[in-house]
């Protein structure tokens, strides 16, 4: 049980890291748009 819980804790941390890392890259590329329709990627 403890190994499974440790895996789950690790997975939660991985979710945190993945969100922060990918969001950082996306923000660098282009700001997060509220509409999903920024002029640069229309169509």
């Amino acid at each position, binding site marked *: *049980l403890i190994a*499974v819980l440790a895996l*789950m804790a690790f997975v*939660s941390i991985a979710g945190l890291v993945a969100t922060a890392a990918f969001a950082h890259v996306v923000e660098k590329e282009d700001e997060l748009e509220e509409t*999903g329709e920024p002029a640069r990627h*229309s169509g």
Partner: protein
Amino acid sequence: MPTAEQNTVSSKASVFGLLDEAPMTPLHYCYWLLASGGTLLDGFSVVALGIAIPLLKQDMTITPVLIGLIGSALVLGAVLGATLGGIAADRIGRKRAFIADMAILLAGSALCAVARGPGSILVGQFLIGVGIGIDFPTSGSYVSEIMPRALRSRMTVATIALQSVGMVLAAITAIAIFRAHPTATDWRLLLGTGGVLAAIFMSARLFLPEGPRWLAEKGEFAEAAKVLSGLIKTPAPLTRLEVSESAAPATKPLGFAALFSPRYRTRTLLVSVPWLLMDVATYGVGLFTPVILGALHFDSARTGTVAAVFADAEGSGLVDLFLLAGFVVGIWAIPRFGRVPLQVGGFAAMTFGMLLLMFATLADDGPQMHLGLVIAGFILFNFAMNAGPNATTFTLPPILFPTAIRASASGFAAACAKAGATFGTFVVPQLQAHGD
């Protein structure tokens, strides 16, 4: 003189601008409710199946392997449905996908309700999963596309929050059925109720208009103008839209493959990887649900299967109410703190909750003797998950991708999440059993 492409972009921008700035009307709420029926049925179906399984085991000969397969059919159906449904909603439209998913849900529920053997239930649950899977990307896209900018994030979170409402509704339905008619065949009524709800939503969705952003994306500006006039109650801007209809769509259409193009692949990773990880982690806290229910005296000590299932339904309803509270906080917090900070903070608090559960388990006398810690870890994990990642992962794809691939992106992300749920539900127990 403007080119055809400039005209098209300009008229799409007009549709998007009018939707963004429109005041919230009762019609917006009505469309939101109809669009959110799939997430409601998602929560309903999961809890209804969980409550039905002990009764199924009593009512018909069913092996543990088949029980596992029935549970996995729901999730695997959702993986398939989300992937294909997202693509379909981008190609044939949100409304057609909405009606198709409810028809599939209705067929699956009906098959379960009249099943003569486990095979029919297996197929029925798979169909229910497919229907739910199609609905996930369609509802997220539709709601984010029709809502004014000011309320977009809140209403999209409210859509996924209906998952918890569906869970509570399933528990209440089960309790009502057990009180009125306590027999081992009650599982038929319970699973059939999902079909009745699907029929109601399918009928009502016939009156739902197509998403105006999707219509504009396809160059159908007159139709988009009609929907807009109903929503914003102002005919003035429609002339502008109708005039621009003469301009042929000149932009190159995006497809599913665009999700993995250099332009969008980081966004695809952002919407799919954390959602997958969250669904894996969700399993861990589920291990403690029996402990929590036992502590709250919702254990299965009552004599007889129906009485025990009744107790479980009461306990599930209480826990599900608590999950709903997390979503309510998410609805309040998302516009204030933003999706990404809330998702990061939610994952951090989930980790802390899991550490509390680990600490309780590591203690010499076992988790039952540290119920305070177990309850604190359980509450923190579930609260953080629903106020954080469970709310934000659903709302991120619609804002990060343009209309042409919005549902495809949402569908791919939801399919990854369901794959994570499959891992959590079926692979992790194997690891645990191997360790024991």
